[in-house]
């Protein structure tokens, strides 16, 4: 089980968290002007690196806040 450093509550067990996938995917600034291809990119396409990955976690059983961290997708090591 991962030990995840919540910025508000400290190190907690992974079972307290909900995974949120890639971090930094911004909602389109002007959604009405998007093409179908741009919508597909926003809705479905995500990075899937083998290595360091900036991702979102939600502390469901704690402070109930979203935060970002970087985790290595092979070693599962976490850095902030």
């Amino acid at each position, binding site marked *: *089980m*991962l030990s995840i450093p919540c910025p508000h509550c400290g190190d907690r*067990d*992974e*079972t307290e968290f*909900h*995974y949120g*996938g890639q971090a930094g995917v911004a909602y389109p600034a002007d959604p009405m002007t998007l093409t*179908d*291809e741009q*919508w*597909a*990119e926003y*809705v*479905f*396409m*995500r*990075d*899937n*690196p*083998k290595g360091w*990955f900036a*991702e979102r976690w939600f502390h469901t059983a704690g402070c109930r806040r979203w935060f970002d961290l970087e*985790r290595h*997708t*092979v*070693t*599962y090591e976490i850095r902030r």
Partner: protein
Amino acid sequence: MNTLWRNPDPKPTYDVVIVGAGGHGLATAYYLAKNHGITNVAVLERGWLAGGNMARNTTVIRSNYLWDQSAAIYEHSLKLWETLEQELDYEILFSQRGVLNLAHNLPDVREGTRRVNANRLNGVDAEWLTPAEVKKLVPIINISEDLRYPVMGATFQPRAGIAKHDYVAWGFARAADRLGVDLIQNCEVTGFETNAVQTSRGRIGAGRIALCAAGHTSILAAQLGFRLPLQSHPLQALVSELLEPVLNTVVMSNAVHVYVSQAHKGELVMGAGIDAYNGYGQRGSFHVIENQLAAAVELFPIFARAHVLRTWAGVVDVSPDASPIIGRTPVDDVFINCGWGTGGFKATPGAGWVYADTIANGRPHPLAEPFALERFTSGALVDEHGAAAVAH
């Protein structure tokens, strides 16, 4: 030495280079040679043959998917399984012992009965069983109403079953090799050129390039300069020690995240849902195993006496609609077969058949058309989260 396949050095160029010698890559090579007469083919494997997900899956074979497009491709695959031993002239221990998908709440019951009806309309064998009928089929199951997640019925596909995964890979490898296909192990693809791949064993020319790399497809696509709607997750499984026969069908439960069969040798083979996070580490978190075993012991109290012998994980490429992606890519002469996620083993012969046809003719096989990458732009998704049976 008498081996099942040669271990040739790569030739300078091939008509088709397949990246990944798992089940799908080997089956694709076999059907390219057998059905299309394309024998100047190499299958490149960075590790050893069939050592990735092909060695790590729980070998469940079934075709009871909800939508017409899925039923068509998975049933095509099941039909190929039914004659595969004769086709390959190689024993694969294919055993049509049936698959139960348990329902534990009213939505499960509604979804299950709907799927049985959908399956029947598509010519896929399916029945709805009451809890008593489930108990008759699987005497060791607990159908008490006191369970946290009681058994409220189940879908049953009698023609579903299991096979010996290693034998399937070896059978396809041997048959492809005999037709002239070069299986090249310890040969990692490190980059791409126009109609060529760079590898750890040098540059290899390729008329067409066919990716068959499951959880590592995104890495290859990134080298080719396009993105895919895939996320790679650990999917864990485990086996017990060898036990006397107690379970002669496959039992799956979507709601409590466990599926179990008893292999020919006697070990209980169990799988769970995916680990939530992205991971290429071929290992997951222990709490997933703990939850899976808690569910298994509640359903099968007799399992409390069994011991976990070994646990492991594969890296599965999960797509947004739990359906595969098969077909052309934004790069000319490069094809993809990926996104099979948690359920690729059952599709091995069908995916190979359809993908080989797609590569040979440079256009999607009719069964592959609904699974093109373009569906994420058009919005014509094939949502199989209900039938995928493994929680995503």
